[in-house]
């Protein structure tokens, strides 16, 4: 395991993978997959609950036992007002000022609404939240979010749950280049470990994923695969990849080539 730490939202972490807690075949499988991933941030949500369910639940007990950072989301919100109310409720329930801000603008591809996301970000930051905004790979939107005080940006790889990987690596690269000081997480659309490697090789600080693990044939094994993919991608980025060349170039020394090669 990589022992180097990095910082996000005021916390020092080793893992650069943020994992979701939804869609697993069962709670035990979720727990095992999260443990296997060695992720130190898990996303959670809030939904209506009746008194019959006790005002508490098995799910939340499992997450608390894991003793890792929780990142509540505002999934399902369609306006800044809804997202702000959800964030305020999440802060009280989960005891954290972190919020994964999701304000959806289109029901077909669950694309974030940049205008409402921006509006909500500005207000939530003033209220003391650490906002993790889910956004598209639009550079200007990223700029606006940074201008209102976002220190973290989470552009999508592709639509939520699609598993399409990185649709626009060049856009993601441009955001990385423009905002070296911000923490950047590729959120949504990651489908397979190689997508995680690609995102990390672009210099992104981390990845956030859920469906790719939870919907795998073997979620626990896939969690492990993503753990290594995230590390591999980061190490690849830090090591610096070679320049591509148009033509072949031998890697074995040509000096001292035996005579029979010279005539072939």
């Amino acid at each position: 395991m990589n022992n180097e730490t990095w910082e996000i939202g005021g916390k020092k972490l080793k893992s650069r993978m943020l994992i979701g807690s939804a869609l697993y075949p069962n709670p035990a499988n979720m727990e095992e997959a999260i443990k296997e991933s060695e992720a130190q941030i898990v996303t959670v949500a809030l939904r209506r609950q009746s008194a019959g369910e006790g005002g508490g639940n098995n799910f939340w007990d499992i997450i608390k036992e894991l003793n890792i950072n929780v990142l509540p989301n505002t999934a399902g919100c369609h306006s800044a007002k809804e997202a702000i109310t959800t964030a305020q409720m999440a802060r009280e329930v989960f005891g954290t000022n972190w919020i994964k801000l999701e304000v959806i603008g289109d029901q077909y591809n669950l694309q974030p609404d940049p205008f409402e996301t921006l509006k909500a970000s500005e207000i939530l930051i003033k209220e003391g939240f650490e906002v993790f905004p889910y956004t598209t790979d639009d550079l200007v939107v990223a700029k606006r979010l940074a201008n209102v005080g976002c220190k973290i940006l989470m552009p999508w790889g592709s639509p939520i749950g699609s598993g399409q990987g990185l649709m626009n690596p060049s856009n993601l690269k441009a955001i990385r280049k423009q905002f070296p000081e911000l923490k950047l997480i590729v959120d949504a659309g990651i489908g397979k470990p190689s997508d995680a490697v690609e995102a990390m090789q672009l210099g992104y600080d981390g990845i956030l994923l859920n469906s790719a693990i939870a919907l795998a044939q073997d979620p626990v094994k896939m969690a492990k695969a993503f753990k290594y993919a995230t590390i591999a991608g980061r190490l690849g980025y830090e090591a610096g990849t070679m320049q591509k060349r148009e033509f072949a170039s031998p890697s074995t020394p040509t000096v001292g080539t035996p005579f029979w090669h010279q005539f072939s």
Partner: protein
Amino acid sequence: MIKVSINGEIKELEENLNVKQLIEALNYKTKGFAIAINTTFVPIAKYENTIINDGDTIDILAPVQGG
């Protein structure tokens, strides 16, 4: 009696209940939920001073799985 919506269900309540009394009346025993009335968050500190009115829409939310 007043009529309110609680998590999408219409219910009849006594008049002049505050949020603390509402939670007790609904039999919420443990912590781990948050309340919004008419889409505005009501923090715990304001439970006793917040009166439920006829026609209010009350949402009681608790932790669930999320991505």
